[in-house]
């Protein structure tokens, strides 16, 4: 039987449902394209309670985090959040996550739903010699993402107060006795917040439902996993299981920025030092020139030869064209390189494109106009 989140009673009345990572989740409410555009132009809200939330606490918490993440956690004081990875000894990606430093020796990892158990067990294994306590708080908390240029206005209208929170910072907040961790993070490329609603187990979902309904009343459009996927592809963000997995390392995935090779030690470091200058493939964006939507598994052809494959593809509601990401050999990885993609019954023309796919002066959190 698939599991459900605290907001299930809302979803089942308003959304087309789908199963994802063992959870019954909304695919869309009004339509993927409509929901997608509302996030780029205004504000959308997503239930992301299915994701894993692991609390790391204790005297050796920082030492532990420095061991399991390739990022230098010392650079992020309490109140900061950062994107990072869990690597295996071979430098392969076990998961990607956002780490929230809650206190000097307290962290929260938000991991992919599909890896919840795997990550927890593995982290536990790495912690046996340290004074650190790991707790999976996924089931006692709910989580939602408020995303889009109007997110801040909408959330401020609820709190009745200005929010002074920079990107990748977090703080504690409360609304009508609902306690939450409020973080300026997300998975859409837009400005926005992720809210972790505390003390809201599935048997007592009222706080989560109350907040969810209130944010919708205030103007946030409910969005499903369909729009979550199209938004993150447009932004060039990876989905674990599609674009990254244990057979891919951070150099190939273009995630070098989260890896600090100056750190004395982290799991996977030795292997990354060996391979860092000679990746056999690179993750790239692909923008369709001809009609058609590239899908996972489609071959990418350059100079008459197959140079890689698509790992995620969709139709971009913003660009009104097919877009994708995938892996190609380094000689075909430069932006602007013309390639062909083998679609279902024909081939389509495409070009290698950087991330994100949209114009950053007009869309995304860096946009110029408010």
């Amino acid at each position, binding site marked *: 039987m698939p599991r459900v989140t605290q907001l299930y009673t809302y979803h089942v009345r308003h959304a087309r449902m789908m199963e994802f990572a063992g959870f019954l989740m909304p695919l869309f409410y009004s339509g993927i394209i409509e929901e997608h555009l509302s996030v780029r132009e205004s504000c959308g809200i997503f239930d992301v309670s299915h994701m894993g939330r692991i609390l790391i606490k204790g005297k050796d918490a920082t030492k532990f985090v420095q061991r399991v993440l390739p990022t230098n956690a010392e650079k992020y004081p309490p109140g900061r959040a950062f994107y990072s990875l869990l690597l295996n000894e071979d430098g392969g990606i076990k998961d990607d996550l956002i780490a929230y430093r809650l206190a000097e020796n307290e962290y929260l990892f938000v991991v992919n739903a599909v890896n919840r158990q795997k990550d927890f067990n593995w982290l536990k294994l790495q912690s046996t010699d340290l004074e650190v306590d790991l707790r999976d708080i996924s089931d006692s908390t709910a989580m939602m993402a408020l995303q889009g240029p109007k997110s801040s206005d909408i959330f401020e209208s609820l709190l009745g107060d200005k929010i002074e929170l920079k990107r990748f910072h977090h703080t504690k907040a409360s609304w009508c006795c609902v306690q939450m961790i409020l973080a300026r993070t997300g998975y859409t490329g837009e400005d926005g917040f992720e809210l972790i609603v505390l003390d809201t187990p599935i048997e007592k979902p009222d706080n989560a439902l109350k907040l969810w309904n209130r944010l919708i009343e205030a103007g946030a459009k409910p969005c499903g996993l369909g729009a979550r996927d199209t938004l993150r592809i447009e932004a060039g963000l990876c989905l674990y299981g599609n674009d990254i997995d244990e057979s891919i390392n951070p150099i190939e995935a273009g995630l070098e920025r989260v890896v600090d090779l100056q750190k004395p030690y982290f799991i996977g470091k030795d292997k990354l030092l060996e391979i860092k200058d000679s990746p056999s493939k690179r993750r790239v964006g692909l923008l369709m020139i001809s*009609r*058609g939507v590239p*899908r996972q598994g489609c071959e990418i052809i350059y100079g008459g030869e197959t140079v890689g494959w698509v790992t995620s593809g*969709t139709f971009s*509601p913003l660009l009104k064209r097919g877009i994708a990401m995938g892996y190609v050999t380094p000689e075909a990885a430069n932006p602007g390189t013309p390639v062909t993609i083998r679609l279902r019954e024909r081939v389509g023309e495409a070009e290698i494109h950087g991330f994100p796919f949209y114009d950053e002066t007009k869309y995304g959190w860096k946009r110029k106009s408010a």
Partner: protein
Amino acid sequence: MSIKVGIYDVRDGLLYNREHEWVRLEDGDIAVIGVSDYAAKQLHDIVYVTLPAKGKRVTRMEPIATLESVKAVADVYSPLSGEVAEINQALTERPELVGESPYQDGWIVKLRIEPDRFKEEKMALMSPKEYARYIEELIRKA
């Protein structure tokens, strides 16, 4: 007039194929073909429609067009045999018509059919009532 099955509309006066296409007879030997509201809603967010060339001959249950949505691609199977007499060119620019108006503006092709063959092939098609029961059953199993 139409039958409602949950959120799905089954339009009266049409014949339905089990792959969710509908047929409406026009001027004796012309059959208009489209997909049902159920099919359009199942696929949702249709972004490309690939149409056949005029004059193409198809036999019953052969793919005649493709509908591509944000999430998936689906073939449209010809519910009848015949020759493509007309295609709905509007769908090239406005593929969303299939979802917005599946029984009217979202029609896909018109086939010139042979009356004798039609009499035979018609037996495999469903009445609106039969089709409504058919999708009710599909929803129950899902």
